[in-house]
């Protein structure tokens, strides 16, 4: 914090329009599918229609003689070179995983898995030839249901003896962070036992995945729609056994990811193989149907929960038992997703006892992996639903139950029962502001009026408080969780002869607005105009080091590396300034872009120093003529944004339709660099969280076919379906980074899902409804109301 106080902050805090939008909205974008290289060939995938089958024969003869076809590759053709797609997070030493070739060799384990690839002169010729590949399958039994898979009656892979990949346990009594949950449960005055279902979701970013590989020249160059060019480069090298130095990965304009592009995809590996086999540039762009069917899905957990409490509302313990659906394979971080949630079930509360157990299970569904929030939305949903259940049980106001248990602002820093240290927070302030913006008492009065009047449209108030761990991640912590890499980020600040600045960041943006935010950071720090800063990223030859973008890490980790590099530039420039002005280095003061000699009116600018350094005609002896500076920042702790969300939900009891009358969120994301970018992240996050509560669900049929295979059936809400959000902020700076920023990329997604579902239930609980599975579709809500009339049932 100290560093910021003495510096001007003309830029930080300003709602700058996004630099990157001009080219994006005027069609001058460079998405991967826009790439056209001379002689480029096109790929189309032959995919398995079966969810589990032996491949007995693949006849490619007809496809090979199809017009325009240059090559057809099967799993057998590439078995020796394709390696196995990486899982970088073996959560336990005995974790089990099937081999995962990019092209299936002798067994497919989900519908949509690639069994052959066509390489042709045109995309149309490639697509036509798909139908001419004749694959013979011997169907095997499928296991689709997570709870059934846990019993091992049917195996998802013939190569494994069990569907269990790993079991991971955290117990506060063993870890020394708290007491025994069993004791808490045994002596509970109130025990709430619930099972919640996190449905499968599909990351439905705007730009489908696309990859172009150019094998000509000294290195393989890959352009790809990815969140992780650096990690991908390393993983491609490891998977395919080629030196890392021979691979260059470029993420050009990337149209959204939400975790869906945090992956090393089979199709990326296949495009390299095709380029290698043909010696020509190759392109693959997935169709939306392929994206929905075969790209990784998210969530898909069963949460079995026990919460013990005293009758005054004090929670005494929480036990979490998870089944997590891996789908058919482990992707890059699949196995670790539930673990990212493990530290968040206690949320903003002071439970004395906590136990978490997760079983990672294989099924014959599409593989799963990160999806916006990754583990944390699941955790927040569970605890916030439980807090409402506890409030109901004790006939308390849901806000009062939360207040009874949350960490008070004067208690920070706070060591949690899950073993984290929360640096700062002020849940009272955020909640008070939300209550005010929402008119909580007025809403409760309106709710009572409708109940008393037996109004067909009932009103519910959904409460959700949350915190999350952002800024992934302190490398040592990742090491202790057996993650395969660190959590640092790299940046370089280059000073051009004109005094213009180039910022190179390892945190590769795909829609967030890093170019704008980083420019604001550097403009302030170096005292140069915003317009004079250029941000470069997403090309491993330009940004040589980096760990990319996910987990709300960019500002709190990548942004801090940028500031650290800028500070090094200032230190170097001071040496030159002192020399130019014939003063001693200690007497040089820097502020707002100018270097002054203390106590005099002598000064020089960064631009003048840049030119002098470039010319190098008159520099101090031994001074390297270069102001450019690198920095790598490894955070000492996570950051912990938090907030309070309140939703007024209308349920039409005649149709079951759910509407959002009012949505208030107050988020504390620490110090804000650009309020407009924050607002955008919050809005988008809310939309995705609301979508989980009400609209989206990936459904497979019993045979394993994805039923929601297009946007006709996979319902992504659009603007008319979403309310006008009332957003507010409190600002409690983080202490884990010099700016005090916390991260905002996932906040909306994490908090809104339980706010909505709590609101739906609050509207109909008095009619006898106990629970409704997500998404709370009109049909489910109506059926729950019908069942409640007879049995008090659960849907």
């Amino acid at each position, binding site marked *: 914090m100290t560093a910021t106080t003495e510096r001007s902050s003309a830029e930080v805090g300003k709602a700058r329009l996004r630099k990157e939008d001009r080219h994006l909205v005027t069609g001058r974008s460079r998405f991967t599918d826009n790439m056209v290289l001379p002689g480029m060939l096109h790929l189309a995938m032959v995919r398995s229609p079966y969810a589990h089958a032996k491949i007995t024969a693949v006849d490619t003869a007809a496809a090979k003689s199809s017009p325009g076809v240059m090559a057809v590759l099967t799993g057998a053709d590439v078995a020796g070179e394709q390696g196995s797609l990486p899982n970088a997070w073996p959560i336990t030493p005995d974790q089990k995983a099937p081999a995962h070739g990019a092209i299936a060799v002798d067994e497919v384990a989900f519908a949509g898995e690639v069994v052959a690839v066509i390489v042709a002169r045109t*995309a*149309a010729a490639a*697509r*036509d030839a798909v*139908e001419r590949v004749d694959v013979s399958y011997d169907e095997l039994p499928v296991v689709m249901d997570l709870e059934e898979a846990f019993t091992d009656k049917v195996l998802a892979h013939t190569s494994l003896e069990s569907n269990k990949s790993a079991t991971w346990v955290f117990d506060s009594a063993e870890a020394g962070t708290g007491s025994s949950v069993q004791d808490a449960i045994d002596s509970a005055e109130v025990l709430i036992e619930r099972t919640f279902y996190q449905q499968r979701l599909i990351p439905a970013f705007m730009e489908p995945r696309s990859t172009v590989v150019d094998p000509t020249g000294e290195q393989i160059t890959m352009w790809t729609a990815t969140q992780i060019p650096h990690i991908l480069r390393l993983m491609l090298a490891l998977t395919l056994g080629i030196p890392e130095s021979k691979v260059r990965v470029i993420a050009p304009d990337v149209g959204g990811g939400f975790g869906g592009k945090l992956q090393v995809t089979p199709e990326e590996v296949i495009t390299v193989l095709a380029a290698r086999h043909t010696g020509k540039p190759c392109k693959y762009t997935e*169709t*939306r*149907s392929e994206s929905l069917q075969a790209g990784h899905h998210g969530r898909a957990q069963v949460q079995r929960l026990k919460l013990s409490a005293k009758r005054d509302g004090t929670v005494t313990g929480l036990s979490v038992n998870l089944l997590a659906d891996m789908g058919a394979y482990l992707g890059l971080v699949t196995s670790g997703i539930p673990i990212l949630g493990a530290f968040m079930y206690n949320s903003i509360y002071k439970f004395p006892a906590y136990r978490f157990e997760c079983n990672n299970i294989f099924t014959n569904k599409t593989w799963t992996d990160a999806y916006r929030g990754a583990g944390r939305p699941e955790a927040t949903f569970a605890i916030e639903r439980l807090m409402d259940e506890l409030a109901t049980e004790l006939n308390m106001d849901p806000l009062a139950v939360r207040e009874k248990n949350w960490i008070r602002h004067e208690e920070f820093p706070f060591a949690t029962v899950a073993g984290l240290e929360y640096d700062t927070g002020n849940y009272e302030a955020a909640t008070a502001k939300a209550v005010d913006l929402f008119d909580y008492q007025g809403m409760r009065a309106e709710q009572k009026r409708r109940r008393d009047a037996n109004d067909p449209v009932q009103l519910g108030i959904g409460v959700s408080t949350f915190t999350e761990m952002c800024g992934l991640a302190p490398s040592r912590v990742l090491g202790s969780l057996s993650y395969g890499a660190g959590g640092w980020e790299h940046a370089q600040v280059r000073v051009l002869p004109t005094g213009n600045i180039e910022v190179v960041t390892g945190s590769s943006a795909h829609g967030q607005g890093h170019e704008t935010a980083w420019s604001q950071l550097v403009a302030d720090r170096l005292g140069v105009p915003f317009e004079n800063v250029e941000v470069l990223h997403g090309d491993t030859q330009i940004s040589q080091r980096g760990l990319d973008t996910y987990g709300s890490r960019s500002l709190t980790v990548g942004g801090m590396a940028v500031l650290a590099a800028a500070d090094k530039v200032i230190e170097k420039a001071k040496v030159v300034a002192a020399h130019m002005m014939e003063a001693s280095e200690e007497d040089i003061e820097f502020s707002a872009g100018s270097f002054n000699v203390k106590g005099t009116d002598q000064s020089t600018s960064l631009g003048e120093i840049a030119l002098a350094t470039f010319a190098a005609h008159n520099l101090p002896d031994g001074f390297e003529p270069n102001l450019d500076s690198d920095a790598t920042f490894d955070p000492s702790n996570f950051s912990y944004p938090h907030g309070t969300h309140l939703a007024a939900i209308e349920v039409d009891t*005649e*149709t*079951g*339709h759910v509407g959002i009358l009012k949505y208030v969120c107050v988020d504390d994301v620490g110090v804000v660099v650009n309020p407009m970018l924050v607002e955008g992240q919050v809005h988008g996050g809310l939309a995705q969280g609301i979508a989980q509560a009400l*609209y989206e*669900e990936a*459904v497979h049929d019993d045979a394993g076919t994805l*039923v*929601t295979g*297009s946007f*006709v*059936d996979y*319902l*992504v*809400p*659009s603007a*008319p*379906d979403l309310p006008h959000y009332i957003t507010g902020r409190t600002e409690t700076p983080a202490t884990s980074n010099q700016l005090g920023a916390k991260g905002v990329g996932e906040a909306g997604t994490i908090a809104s899902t339980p706010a909505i579902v709590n609101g739906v239930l609050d509207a109909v609980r008095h009619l006898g409804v106990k629970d409704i599975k997500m998404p709370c*579709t*009109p*049909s489910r809500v*109506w*059926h729950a109301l019908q069942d409640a009339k007879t049995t008090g049932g659960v849907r």
Partner: protein
Amino acid sequence: MIPSAFDYAAPATVEEALGLLAAADAAGDDVKVLAGGQSLLPVMKLRMADPSMVVDLGRIAGLNGVTDSGDSLLIGAMTPHHVVATDPLIAQHVPLLAQAAATVADPQVRHRGTFGGALVHADPAGDLPAPVLAAGATFLISGPGGQRSVDAADFFQGYFTTAVEEGEILTGIRVPKYTGWGSHYEKFTRVAQQWSIVAVAALVRVEAGTITEARIGLTNMASTPLRAAAVEAALAGGPATADAIAAAAAHAAEGTDPASDLNGDAAYRAHLAQVLTKRAVLAAVGLQAGA
């Protein structure tokens, strides 16, 4: 999303188009008529349809637009949804059609997709068949044997199947005027842009507080649009009051055969039909604004 290769023709007259259809048929080619392409092109791109020849009606003069022919309107088959939704003649004489057309998809689809295309396509969840059925329209069909006309009651024959035979073209739809009637299209969806889970089209004539005639069409309550005959009978001659309407609407699911899918099972649809019928008729008689 690349369709199979196909031949394309854009004839200038209906006769020429019929000739092309006949020739393709004789040659054993699979031929498809193209109107707005908003249903045909997606299925071709998904390769659920692989016609070897596509005959585009877009260049034929005279199939597009609304004309007044006395006690009825003639709507050209190629009239886009957007025009149906905004045409002054339709607004005056059968606003039900305008209201239903305005619920179709988004502006892009409404500018491309056509009235005739939607009716021949006959998606059970499509929004135009039920209003057209309720209105008792007549379909004008041209084929190798000349022109014929088919009543709405006989036009919709099954799931995606109508009276338009292979080799035939729907040229227009004649819709009686309902000037002065109350009407409402009540559509129920989960998200704003969606085909109907269930929808109800109501045309109601009220004289001095009494419903003299009601024509109710149901969307997505069977493989074809249906008339809610029992509701119509219960309403006719009764008072235009909320209670009488609610009682009549309770018959809405009689004789229906709705599907079960991700949006709801048959029981839920049967229930929705009743609620939406009540709401549609209430709105049509001006007792309550439709949702």
